[in-house]
């Protein structure tokens, strides 16, 4: 252990701690005082305007994975990483059409969680329970992904002096306690700080670094063409991460962009349909942030060459550590830590609300009334955070591939959610079986037949839709009443 690195680590980590603590304090100071009902705790009392939704609907999706993983993808796979802004833009288009309809259903029927939407619209408590279990199980890898990001950021800021694993566990515990106290409104305030800081750091990294070392972006790409020309284009045809993979992944991930439990919760938190539509128009600009991160990734490839696998996720932080003073590392790592912690907070909160409303409450009917529901959600926040931490210790994985598993899973909710948003008269049993078949297929394709050359989740979705179609066809037409008559839209069907 060199004394210099200890000093550098102390400076950088102090800045990280101040940034995390400052963000939490800022968010807590902005909270409303008084009694918090479940809708206020989980979805901000359906009161959020354009700015909060902007940070919740983009900032919570672009996470530490974006920060480190996008640069790491550029470093390892080059042009394949362009799928990230591409699917985002498609996600915003889908969101424009879908989210206002989901919000309206939520407000009219008093829905708080994504499984609430499915269970209520399809009048199927069983679908609600299946959806809830799937959401909570799928959300866990996404949270552990953030923990891995956090570990990388903290160990880089510690210059080898700090055990990143322990640091990540401590920071994560702090954010779990914050989520316990603050609910979605606090998360939105924290997200605001996080996005501001991330934007500043990304602009520095992606614009200043290439100009500093290569004179201009053109100079950087000219050098890349000499040393890493193959990375600047996609591999052809159905090669791994090739053109076919690109098309299928962009389309699939794009349509699944808003299927995450925290995105549906954010949708329910919107004040009005127009807030969501206005947001859809502003959100694509967030993707510029990603392009700037790509520049940083390419710069890292030239400045710290020779990294493989996991190590590439550190590439951009290595550039900072090698060429910049510790205080710069402090701000970069602080932004990275927030990018891991704040989306974790939103995701854990959404999972906790789901666990309480759609798993525990149906299991013990009449035992949890509205007064106790907020408390139950708070306790679930702690339980899920602890579970995520344990899972992270037991099953470590690479950043990018975990995200693809998450996406291939949550996108299987698409038929049910789209059906509800557009008033399709599908049967609960068809949606339930389709969802189950889709998730099983996607998991099999991902884990058993790895490296297909096309997106495994898309295979799952095709099976999912086929099952929905077949069950609809086979079940008798007259047996059940249509899930939604137009008149039922006016009257809320739950509490």
């Amino acid at each position, binding site marked *: 252990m060199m004394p210099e690195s200890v000093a550098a680590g102390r400076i950088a980590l102090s800045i990280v701690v101040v940034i995390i603590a400052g963000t939490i304090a800022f968010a807590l100071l902005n909270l409303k005082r008084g009694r918090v009902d479940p809708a206020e705790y989980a979805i901000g009392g359906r009161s959020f305007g354009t700015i909060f939704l902007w940070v919740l609907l983009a900032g919570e999706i672009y996470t530490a994975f974006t920060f480190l993983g996008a640069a790491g993808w550029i470093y390892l796979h080059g042009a394949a990483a362009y799928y990230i802004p591409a699917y985002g833009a498609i996600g915003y288009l889908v969101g424009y059409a879908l989210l206002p309809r989901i919000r309206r259903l939520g407000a009219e029927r008093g829905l708080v969680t994504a499984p609430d939407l499915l269970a209520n619209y399809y009048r199927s408590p069983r679908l609600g329970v299946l959806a809830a279990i799937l959401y909570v199980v799928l959300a866990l890898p996404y949270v552990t992904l953030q923990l891995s990001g956090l570990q990388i950021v903290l160990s880089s800021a510690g210059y080898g002096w700090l055990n990143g694993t322990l640091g990540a566990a401590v920071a994560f515990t702090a954010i779990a306690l914050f989520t316990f106290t603050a609910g979605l409104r606090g998360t939105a305030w924290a997200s605001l700080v996080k996005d501001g800081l991330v934007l500043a750091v990304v602009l520095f990294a992606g614009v200043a670094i290439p100009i500093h070392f290569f004179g201009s972006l053109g100079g*950087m790409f000219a050098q890349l063409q000499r040393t890493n020309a193959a990375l600047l284009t996609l591999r052809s045809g159905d090669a791994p991460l090739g053109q076919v993979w690109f098309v299928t992944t962009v389309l699939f991930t794009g349509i699944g962009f808003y299927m995450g439990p925290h995105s549906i919760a954010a949708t329910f938190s919107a004040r009005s349909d127009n807030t969501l539509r206005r947001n859809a128009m502003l959100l694509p600009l967030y993707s510029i942030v990603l392009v700037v991160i790509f520049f940083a990734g390419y710069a890292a490839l030239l400045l710290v060459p020779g990294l493989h696998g996991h190590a590439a996720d550190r590439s951009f932080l290595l550039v900072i550590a090698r060429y910049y003073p510790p205080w710069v590392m402090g701000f970069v790592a602080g932004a990275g830590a927030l990018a891991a912690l704040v989306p974790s907070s939103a995701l854990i909160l959404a999972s906790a609300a789901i666990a309480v409303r759609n798993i525990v409450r149906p299991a013990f009917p009449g035992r949890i009334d509205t007064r106790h529901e907020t408390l139950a959600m708070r306790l679930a926040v702690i339980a899920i955070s602890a579970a995520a931490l344990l899972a992270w210790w037991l099953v470590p994985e690479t950043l990018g591939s975990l995200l693809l598993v998450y996406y291939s899973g949550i996108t299987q909710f698409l038929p049910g959610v789209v059906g509800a948003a557009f008033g399709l008269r599908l049967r609960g049993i068809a949606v339930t079986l389709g969802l189950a078949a889709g998730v099983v297929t996607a998991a099999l394709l991902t884990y058993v037949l790895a490296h297909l050359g096309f997106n495994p989740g898309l295979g799952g979705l095709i099976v999912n839709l086929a099952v929905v179609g077949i069950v609809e066809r086979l079940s008798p037409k007259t047996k059940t009443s249509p899930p939604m008559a137009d008149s039922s839209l006016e009257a809320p069907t739950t509490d």
Partner: protein
Amino acid sequence: MNSWRTRALRIAIALLPVLAFAVGTPLLNRVEPQILGIPLNLAWVILWILLTPICLLAIERLRRSQG
């Protein structure tokens, strides 16, 4: 009576960025000619990031004019 046409137009405009990103990017899979020093495929992605809000604005205008 005009509403289905407006709706079709809105869907057509929405499909532009989808096709540009998902199909256009892998087809324009080359570095040259560079635009402002940026490889062509990446410049294409940047262009459509900027055009997507404009497409959405057009769709929103059509929706409002429809009432």
